[in-house]
């Protein structure tokens, strides 16, 4: 993996920049405190700016958790609706992105529980059937392997690799120690490697 392609959060003077590490995108999120205040006043332009900057992160996170395009869109949409209807009061407005990710992950987990009740995701993982027709074989295998993990494990990996949070940020997000987060990630990757090598 010569060139990781992960988003990183760069903070300077209160602003948050979402930077794609291979340089193909750099979407500045100017002054989250101001944007959040504007959203409270129902400023659609500010809200649109937030959606433009962060929607794909929410979708990535929710997709890895749920394994479903529709469920991912539903979870992201629910997060945006929550922000619009009841914007949070954050002591650190720079954590708006983390707040959105938390809300989206919660929505995705709930979707996952509903899916389990319908025996969708787990049955698919157990049967080994191809999860999504438009995936390459490797990615399809990976998705099946992810489906065998718990929801919280998928969330952990999604935060790390799909969204690009550092272990310290993940630890704060999930209430773990940074070392604990790193250890869990390492073990999960080992498990995925084993499963993928057997497929």
């Amino acid at each position: 993996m010569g060139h990781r392609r992960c988003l990183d959060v760069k903070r300077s003077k209160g602003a948050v920049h979402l930077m794609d590490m291979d340089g193909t995108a750099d979407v500045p999120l100017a002054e989250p405190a101001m944007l959040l205040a504007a959203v409270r006043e129902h400023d659609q332009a500010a809200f649109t700016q937030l959606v433009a900057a962060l929607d794909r992160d929410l979708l990535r996170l929710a997709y890895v958790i749920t394994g479903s395009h529709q469920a991912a869109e539903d979870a992201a949409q629910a997060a945006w609706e929550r922000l619009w209807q009841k914007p949070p009061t954050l002591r650190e407005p720079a954590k708006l992105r983390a707040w959105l990710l938390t809300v989206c992950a919660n929505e995705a987990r709930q979707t996952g529980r509903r899916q389990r009740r319908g025996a969708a995701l787990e049955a698919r993982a157990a049967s080994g059937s191809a999860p999504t027709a438009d995936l390459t074989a490797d990615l399809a295998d990976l998705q099946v392997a992810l489906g065998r993990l718990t929801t919280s494990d998928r969330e952990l990996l999604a935060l790390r690799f799909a969204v690009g949070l550092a272990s310290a940020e993940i630890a704060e997000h999930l209430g773990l120690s940074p070392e604990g987060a790193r250890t869990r990630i390492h073990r999960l990757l080992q498990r995925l490697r084993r499963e993928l090598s057997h497929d």
Partner: protein
Amino acid sequence: MTEALSSEDLEIGRQIRVLADTGAPIRDANAVVRTVISRSPRRSLLRLPMALAASGVLALVVVVGLVSIDYADSSSSPASAHVGGVPIGEFNLGGTTYGISVARSIDLRDARLTEMGEARQNSGFRTEGSTVYQVDDVDPGHVLVMKLIPGERDDAGSIGEYLVLVRGNGFALLCPYFQVGDPLAPSECG
């Protein structure tokens, strides 16, 4: 974000990112916003009533009844619980008394609600069924909730989505479920 992962681990991480990208199409932000606003009850004319409801005129907590849970011991055998002498179900909780309270602005949308038993209560407010829930890992010996039927109101307006059953310092345990600075939050939340 390198953090000493092996090249094999990083390769799987890269594949997770690629997989995530397949589930994350670039959506038209304006379309997303339009959908959000179209579904939002808070848009346009509904803002005024909401502002009034949040004006702080309303008391946070209205004790409207008492739940008493009579319980023999804390073994696995459940004991019956009562509201004002009316049997309300069975709980694996110690014998205790709860106040039934209204918390208009409590937000439990992200909370995990765990069914603790069935109950009937005498507050006069209508609940969705009779299930009593634990909120996340909050001590059910201090806090339980029941889901209200949407639209339940008192003289001051909507009473929110949940009836809260509280005893002891339970209100303080609920602070994470109110926004910072919420004038309707319990006084314990500062």
